[in-house]
């Protein structure tokens, strides 16, 4: 029994370490015709869709230009533009889930281009691909509150997708930016882990692999159908296992990438 407990603790520790926030930029590449995101914090690109950032990391409160975006030369078509679209409003981590903000807003700015994310999703904007096909950009993120108030400290989360206007490349899967404003690193990591586990399908791009065998197959389909109408096999993050989740599972049918 003691051995089982130790093994369980070790597994939990590994899971927390794996879910820890990723420092550094977001690496973009094209995989199977779509924009693919990965963390660049280790010796190899680690596929990820959840990225942590900390307000104040450049010395100015409630401001950061991280995470940046890095695509190697040749990734995108020169002359095209790559951008982001917020898929959700701004929300705050409660310790057990996310709640919508009230007065807090996230300003995303690049020179004259501005997008302010509040309670609802808003249009994003795009920036030109470099002449060598790379896309190395830093957006400026600033947290503020309406009515001249100061935002409450907390962990703020926004969901977005990245797109290209080249007419060929498909948008990325949803990705989540998890910003820490004045809370501990442990709490930040906890929020990143929660988003990875509950919204990003474990952080892997193979969300349909419900039984974790590295393959999306009949057993996953059976699990999804058994959980129909509940939150049991919710892949889209809306709290319900429905047709959208079935479509997502069928779209990722086969071996995980």
């Amino acid at each position, binding site marked *: 029994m003691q051995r089982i407990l130790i093994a369980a603790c070790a597994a939990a520790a590994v899971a927390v370490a794996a879910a820890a926030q990723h*420092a*550094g*930029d977001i*690496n973009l590449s094209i995989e199977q015709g779509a924009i693919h995101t990965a963390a*660049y*914090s*280790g*010796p190899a690109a680690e596929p990820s869709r959840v990225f942590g950032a900390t307000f104040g990391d*450049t*010395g*100015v409160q409630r*401001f950061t*230009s991280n995470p*940046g975006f*890095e695509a*190697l*030369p040749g990734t995108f078509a020169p*002359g095209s533009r790559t951008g982001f679209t917020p898929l959700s409003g701004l929300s705050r981590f409660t310790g057990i889930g996310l709640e919508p903000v009230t007065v807090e807003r996230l300003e995303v700015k*690049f*020179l*004259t*281009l501005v997008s302010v994310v509040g309670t609802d999703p808003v249009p994003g904007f795009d*920036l*030109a691909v*470099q*002449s*060598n096909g*790379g896309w*190395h*950009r*830093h957006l*400026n993120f600033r947290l503020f509150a309406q009515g001249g108030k100061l935002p409450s400290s907390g962990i703020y989360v926004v969901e977005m997708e990245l797109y290209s206007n080249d007419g060929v490349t498909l948008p990325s899967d949803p990705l989540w930016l998890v910003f820490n404003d004045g809370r501990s690193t442990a709490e930040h990591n906890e929020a990143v882990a929660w988003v990875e586990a509950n919204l990003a399908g474990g952080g892997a791009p193979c969300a349909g692999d419900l039984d974790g065998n590295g393959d999306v197959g009949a057993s996953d389909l059976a699990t999804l159908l058994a959980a129909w109408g509940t939150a049991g096999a919710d892949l889209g993050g809306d709290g319900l296992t429905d047709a959208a989740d079935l479509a997502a599972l069928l779209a990722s049918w086969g071996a995980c990438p």
Partner: protein
Amino acid sequence: MIHPSRRRAFTLVELLSVVAIIAAILALVLPAASSMRQRARAATCLANIRSLQAASLAYSTDSSGWLIDARLPHGGIDQGGGESFVEVLSNEGYCDVSQIRSPLDDSPHWSVTDGGEGVPVPNSNGAFRRTSYGLNNHLAREFSPWAAVDSSKTTDRLSKVSDHANTVQLLLMTPVGEFAGSDHPHVEGWGALPGSPVIASGEVAISAVSQDGASPEAVSNWAFLDGHVESASFGRVYVDESRNRLDPFVSPFFARFASAN
């Protein structure tokens, strides 16, 4: 007859007095000597950056007016064969390899083979610092912020910049942090006071000469597109997005503002 053992010697008080006087003289001289050494290093750095600016201009003249481009993002992905723009200049014979490192540069992120401490740049996949000097990213083709918004505003050729004498091309990169591994800052993110010197100091060594932290009074070496160099305070180079000598679309107007103040 005087016995040798009775020869008069220094008393303890006399010895201590001499030691105290020597200590006082050292206390006066050492800071002055240190300050002289710092000034000498700053002057050598200024000569270095002037040579590099001349090399950049020679490169542009030989390249139909195209400006040398930045190549080393700080996020760990190599965008151009692992060379900084200074190494490109060096490899093509425009400058000497010894000019890649400023005498003011005490970064721990140089590799051991380059005579450094061998501490990798943070979040860089183990990369080391490649140059002390950086390019104003407004003049770098691949990383120009205006080019990202509107490609007709790309300022990547000498002919596309209106005021060469008031537009910075070369600067000193920060010795620590992620940007220590890069060869360009992101000027578009610097904002306005009070944050701008703090954000800028995370990317550029804005107090390399004055060694006094992040403030508008901090002094660094800057090289301008016409070939001249200045040891200038940060406030004389950058105030905010619309008043600075880095964005070529506002630099001519800021020059008038700076000279009026």
